[in-house]
């Protein structure tokens, strides 16, 4: 028995299977768990979808990966949409995926959770990175839509609290295409702007945000590029996205999260009235405190002055009494009195001199008379009168007291009481 054999080439049969499968399934939703996830160098993603008893190869081409906001990873339960396709070179069938949603929560939400986790690990939300918000900023930057509700709300608050504030608005798209780029660029630009102006013109704080909307509308503020721009900003950032209940990544990274744009404005702009009152209170306090201090010192001075007066009075009395005693002493020491005393003493002495001098003269006179008497008794003439004589050598006139002063034949002169004798020595014994 001969049968007509239909022989396919490998390509033909593969082509037929391909058609069959495509016709049978077309586009399908498949639910499974991701395993063996491996992105290729070219940017395509390859992995397997599996459940308890089967495994299906799957691929996402690069043009479709961009729409998937969350990160695929092994073990993730997903629902995929795509076409069953045959990869002829390998004889493999696989699911070519166009969309993936995580099972359970929405894709956006998952992406957000994943990104949040990543940024948190990097430390972008850490409190220590938060910069302080200036108390009364000289200039406030606002990054939002120029037509949106946020800027109107912010300006309204300004008008109410501090009309004279300076605001620099940097308009951006806050949703849809280009929003995340706009916002992150604007944050960088305000920082650059600060470098190009004088210190007193610099933007000291910025509000980044928008009014309320759906979660998709707010999505730009959940973008990594925006979160990083906020994190890298040197100007402190207040985030103000949507309503109180909406918390975006921007809110987590920002230095301060304001629940709404109005609240952001209130945070950054103190009420002028409050400031004025505060300043007045302080100035009043300053004056009171100083008045108290000076009153204190005044009192001290008065006290000291009083004591000084008392002391002076006392000193004065002391001085007075010592003056009086000095005066008495001085009176006693008066030279007129002393002169009188000296004079009297001088007179007294003079009298004494007079008396004593008389005595002395008398005494001297007596002694003189007595001496004169004695003197006349000693006169040689007086002795001669009593029979003595004096012999002189005739030639030398010397008085002869010894015999050997003369030789025999010498002439001698002998003086008698009356008259003289001239003789010649005849013998010497």
């Amino acid at each position, binding site marked *: 028995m001969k049968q007509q054999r239909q022989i396919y080439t490998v390509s033909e049969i593969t082509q037929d299977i391909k058609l069959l499968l495509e016709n049978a399934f077309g586009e399908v939703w498949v639910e499974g768990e991701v395993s063996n996830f491996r992105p290729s160098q070219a940017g395509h993603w390859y992995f397997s979808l599996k459940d308890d008893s089967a495994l299906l190869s799957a691929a996402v081409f690069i043009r479709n990966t961009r729409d998937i906001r969350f990160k695929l990873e092994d073990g993730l339960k997903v629902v995929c949409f795509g076409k069953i396709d045959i990869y002829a070179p390998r004889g493999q069938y696989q699911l070519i995926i166009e969309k993936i949603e995580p099972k359970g929560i929405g894709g956006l939400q998952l992406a957000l959770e994943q990104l949040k986790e990543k940024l948190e690990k990097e430390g972008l939300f850490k409190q220590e990175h938060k910069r302080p918000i200036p*108390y009364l900023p000289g200039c406030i930057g606002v990054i939002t839509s*120029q037509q949106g509700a946020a800027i109107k709300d912010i300006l309204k608050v300004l008008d109410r609290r501090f009309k004279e504030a300076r605001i620099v608005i940097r308009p951006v798209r806050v949703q849809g295409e280009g929003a995340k780029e706009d916002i992150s660029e604007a944050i960088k630009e305000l920082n650059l702007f600060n470098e190009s102006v004088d210190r007193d013109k610099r933007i000291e704080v910025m509000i980044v945000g928008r009014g309320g909307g759906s979660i998709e509308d707010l999505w730009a503020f959940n973008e990594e590029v925006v979160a990083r721009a906020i994190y890298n900003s040197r100007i402190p950032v207040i985030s103000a996205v949507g309503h109180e209940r909406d918390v975006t990544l921007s809110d987590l990274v920002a230095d301060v999260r304001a629940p709404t744009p109005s609240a952001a404005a209130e945070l950054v702009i103190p009420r002028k009235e409050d400031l004025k009152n505060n300043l007045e209170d302080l100035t009043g306090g*300053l004056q009171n405190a100083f008045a108290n201090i000076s009153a204190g010192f005044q009192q001290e001075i008065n006290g000291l002055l009083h004591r000084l007066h008392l002391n002076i009075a006392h000193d004065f009395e002391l001085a007075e009494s010592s003056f009086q005693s000095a005066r008495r002493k001085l009176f006693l020491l008066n030279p007129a009195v002393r002169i009188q005393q000296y004079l009297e003493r001088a007179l007294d002495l003079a009298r004494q001199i007079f008396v004593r001098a008389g005595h002395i003269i008398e005494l001297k006179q007596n002694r003189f008379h007595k001496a004169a008497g004695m003197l006349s008794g000693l006169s040689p003439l007086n002795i001669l009168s009593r029979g003595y004589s004096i012999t002189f050598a005739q030639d030398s006139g010397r008085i002869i007291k010894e015999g050997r002063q003369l030789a025999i034949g010498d002439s001698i002169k002998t003086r008698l009481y009356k008259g003289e004798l001239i003789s010649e020595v005849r013998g010497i014994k």
Partner: protein
Amino acid sequence: MAEIKFEEALKKLEKIVEDLEKGDLTLDEALKIYQEGIELSRACSQRLEGAKKKIEVLSKNKKGGFELKGPEESDS
């Protein structure tokens, strides 16, 4: 004094009032910081009263430089 930030000035002023209230200063010291306080108060007051309302819109010109305009001019 012009350089000092409002908040700093206010804080300094608070500190001065506190110091004065403690009252353990010499008269010279008290007088010195009192004068300082008065100057700070004046500076703060000027900062509050001297501010002018100004709303500008930042944009980049063709050369890549920054431009500040009033909100009306750029409201396109």
